[in-house]
């Protein structure tokens, strides 16, 4: 069970960060 929980936390936390960074990069590309 703990492995499933770890996977969920990883997807939410690290996935959330990657999603944000990707959108910042896209916004920067749009400006250039």
């Amino acid at each position, binding site marked *: *069970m*703990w*492995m499933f929980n*770890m996977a969920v936390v990883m997807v939410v936390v690290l996935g*959330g960060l990657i999603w*944000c960074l990707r959108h*910042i990069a896209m*916004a920067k590309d749009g400006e250039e």
Partner: protein
Amino acid sequence: MALFLWAIPLMAAEGVWGKVSRMGIIGSFKHMCGRGWTWAGALMAVIVLGIVFYYGVVVGWCMRYLAYAVMGVFRPGLDTEALWKAFAANGMQQSLLFALVVAICMFITSKGVAGGLEKACKVMVPGIFILLVFLAIRAAFLPGAVKGYEFYFTARASDFLNPKTYLEAFTQVAWSTGAGWGLFLTYFVYVKKSEDIMLTATTTCFADTSAGFLAGMCVIPTIFAYSPDPMAAVKSGNTGLAFIHMTKLFSEIPGGAIMAIAFFLALVLAALSSEIAMIEMGARILEDAGWDRKKATWGIGITTLLLGLPSAMNMTFLDNQDWVWGIGLLLAGLLMGLGAMKIGVRKIWDEHIEPYTQMKHYWMFAAIRFFPVWFAIIFGWWTWQAITWYPGEWYKWLPISKYTFTVGTMYWQWAIAAVVCILLNNWLADRMTHRLEV
């Protein structure tokens, strides 16, 4: 939950304050909410400066332990508790380290935002993540690390039904993300008008949570793999965990010397980047009063050095200041929330956030309306806890005494700060006149 209900809306409000007013905490409150609210910005500044003055001492501890790690002090059989107690009792050594920390922060801040802060953060922040990933991977290969993961990732239904879980989550988020400290506000003084506030606030919160998550992936498996009493180590608080228990493990485990260097280097980078941001916050306030950057940096640096020395010399005083101004951050958040409600939450969203953001979710900002409720619950909980720690004596207040964590000492110091800020309202408002030209 706590990120979305507390940190993100608060940071978004801070971003608006900085970007629209182009002034630091005090000037931005005057600009956004009117002259009569200048005191609120000043009180926020006092709370954060109260933290700056002792936090530099903690950065000094991390630097000393990094030096210990590099010098190979952590060897098998080392009594890490005795090492910590000897260091904690040495006020002179802590003062010198504190002075070094302030000097580093002043040097970086004096170079300006693009030339100093941005360059330093571009190295420090990725550095923290690289070190944490390295430590987490190393910890995964320790025999018995699985016990740590089981502890870290096992969710019990009883915990979800326990109100304390939610209160601690909100408290953690309030401290860890830095929402309501005015740091985000200060950085947003320098951004371009089209900067996406919601996306930046959300990124900051997720980056902070990711760093915390990775730190847990390094610390908890290591403790459960090697500590004879893992629960005692986990419950020993941040200071005991980092400087006594983790140090003990590093001195015993294979490859511990390298892990110790990586661990304390990550701590130094994380702590230093926060201290630099706080010094910048103080310097920006002085610049708003017409000081040039060099003079402002010296002004805040010397003030930090003088007012931080009592914390460097006396650990009880440091603990007291951590208690008073650490909880004070909740008050700072409340002031920010009340300021936003005074202007109008919808108005702020429509005029300053929505036109420039990809994340057009109004609810993410509207949650700021609930701030008085969160404040009442979390602050009430802390107050009640502190009363139970000192039965019959909770109202006593002397900072350097056995009454370090009383409700009395917190309320008195807050009250003095609030009265001074209110009395100086007009004087401060007259001086906050120099907006940054962008």
